[in-house]
């Protein structure tokens, strides 16, 4: 069977039910399993490293710890003051999400259903921001933060991040709003509702799936954000989780078990959220790639 036939068979509605193909299916599962190992092994490594002591993590590269210990997770949490870093990170993520979920739905609603001069121009301007490389504006952002007096504070991270998430959020929400039947808005306006009430009471609740998608995409990105906090935050008390993790790695003697434990602390919340809201995440990625 050629590769062409496999591809055709994979989309055919009947071919995969033919039982005569079991060796082929076995080979398919073998290949899929192999890549699952490649894809998932770093996470296995993190978890196993988090339960080893600093000597075993170097001498025993295999995933199962010989002497499992909770000590590593405990000391990592304390030594690095991860408690404070978690708080800072949660604040930055939460404040950014609140702003993103207020500012951009408003704009997306206007772009989707309202008519006003220069509407297309403004929309085009937002979309063009998609092509600006992050590193190109990084330096001006730091200088701007300084002028605005927010350099070194969480807001110096939040505001640029919110702005950066704008194009995709507007794109996703706009197409969602456009799919809502016009009659709803017209009827509400006829009943004497103001435009804002129509938005807030009718469109916003209806767009919940799209809003969850936007929240989800941004949660993942902001939680993992390293570069912007690293160039704007100076005071270790303001540090976020990825910066704390970087600190662990730049120690004189790297305790890999602690680096792995810190990685687990960062990665687990993302994985939990992802597994529960996977559907929205997948939909959102598809939507944002189409746009």
């Amino acid at each position, binding site marked *: 069977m*050629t590769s062409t036939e496999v591809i055709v068979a994979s*989309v055919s*509605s009947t071919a995969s039910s033919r039982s005569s193909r079991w060796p082929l299916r076995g080979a398919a599962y073998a290949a899929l399993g192999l890549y699952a190992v490649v*894809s998932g092994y*770093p*996470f296995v490594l993190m978890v196993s490293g988090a339960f080893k002591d600093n000597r075993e993590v170097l001498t025993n590269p295999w995933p199962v710890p010989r002497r499992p210990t909770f000590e590593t997770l405990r000391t990592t949490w304390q030594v690095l003051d991860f408690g404070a870093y978690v708080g800072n990170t949660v604040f930055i993520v939460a404040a950014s999400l609140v702003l993103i979920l207020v500012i951009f739905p408003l704009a997306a609603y206007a*772009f989707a259903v309202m008519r006003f001069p220069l509407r297309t121009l403004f929309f085009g301007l937002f979309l063009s921001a998609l092509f600006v490389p992050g590193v190109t*504006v990084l330096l001006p952002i730091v200088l701007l933060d300084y002028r605005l007096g927010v350099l070194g504070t969480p807001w110096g991270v939040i505001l640029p991040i919110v702005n950066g998430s704008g194009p995709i959020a507007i794109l996703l929400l706009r197409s969602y709003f456009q799919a809502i039947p016009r009659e709803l808005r017209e009827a509400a306006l006829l009943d004497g509702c103001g435009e804002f009430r129509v938005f807030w009471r009718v469109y916003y609740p209806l767009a919940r799936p799209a809003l969850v998608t936007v929240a989800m995409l941004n949660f993942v990105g902001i939680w993992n954000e390293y570069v912007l906090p690293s160039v704007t935050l100076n005071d270790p008390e303001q540090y976020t989780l990825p910066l704390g993790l970087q600190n662990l790695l730049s120690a004189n003697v790297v305790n890999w078990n602690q680096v792995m434990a810190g990685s687990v602390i960062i*990665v687990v919340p993302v994985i939990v959220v992802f597994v529960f809201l996977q559907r929205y995440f997948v939909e959102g990625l598809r939507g944002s*790639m189409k746009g």
Partner: protein
Amino acid sequence: MPPTELWTRTGAAAPRSGAAAEPVAVPAAPRRPKRVNAKRYLTGYLFIAPAVILFAVFGVYTVGYGLALSFASWNGLAPQWTWVGLQNFRDLFLNDPLLAPVVQASAGRTAVVMVVLPLATIAISLPIAVLLNSVRRFRAPLRTIYLLPFVTSGNAVFYAWRFMYEPDGIINTCLRAIGLGALAEPDGFLGNPDTALAATVWVQIWVSVPLGILLYLTGLQTVDGELIDAARVDGAGSVRAFRHVIVPLLNPLTALLVIIQVREALQSFQIYLLMTNGGPIDRTNVLGLEVFKLAFSPSANLGQASALGWTLFVVALVLAIVNLRILRSRS
């Protein structure tokens, strides 16, 4: 029928040119008074105002500032800029005996990554997506595992790979355990100048493959299975069914993936910063990282950093436009 409904229904572009210009409009419909229009426009502007203000400050201003700085010399401390015209660009690419070779070498590496990253991502994600689409059991859990690298992309997973690449890491250990000790890297894969770039790009591929799998999986699932069966009943062989039903569907997806990955190759620097910081002996220094270093190292030259950053932007824009043209002409 109220005018509002007419306009929105007929999709007339702007109410100003409204009722009179629109033949569908009922002739009896009264002209909308100017004041009402103005009020409606104002509401529209109020809705986009927060986003526009934020964008004006953090988007337009920063991009413009960067452009201006590209033509100036400034160390970040002096009270004033010195205008130098195109000198930053000349120094970066041609004149400066210390800088130009570094920039040229990073441009070469970036070009290599721009070819390898999209190709490798497609070469891995397409077969995986096809296989995943062909099996019934374990589809959901497998997809979840495949997507994890993309979701968690950040320094945590980069450090996990650094740990695996260590001289006594799991990769060397495995190679030695299965008798391929000759392939092991005594200095670690990131320590050897000859393997460092490949090892870093591999992590970039590992992070990107999920996107490709997701894209192709969506594409394959929208192929109507019955269409294929119908083609077969009509006597089309696998090859013809493949060429006429599946290929036309997957082509635009591949083009899209190429656009995303070329952009990624051109702009990404975080992974290089965190895996190798450009080393050993500059062998993993790419353009994005060079911009970052010019801007944020102790010997920062902010004018040069902006000039190189803007060059990246222009190249990204040109590539995006070319890619979109190709995409459109195909579909």
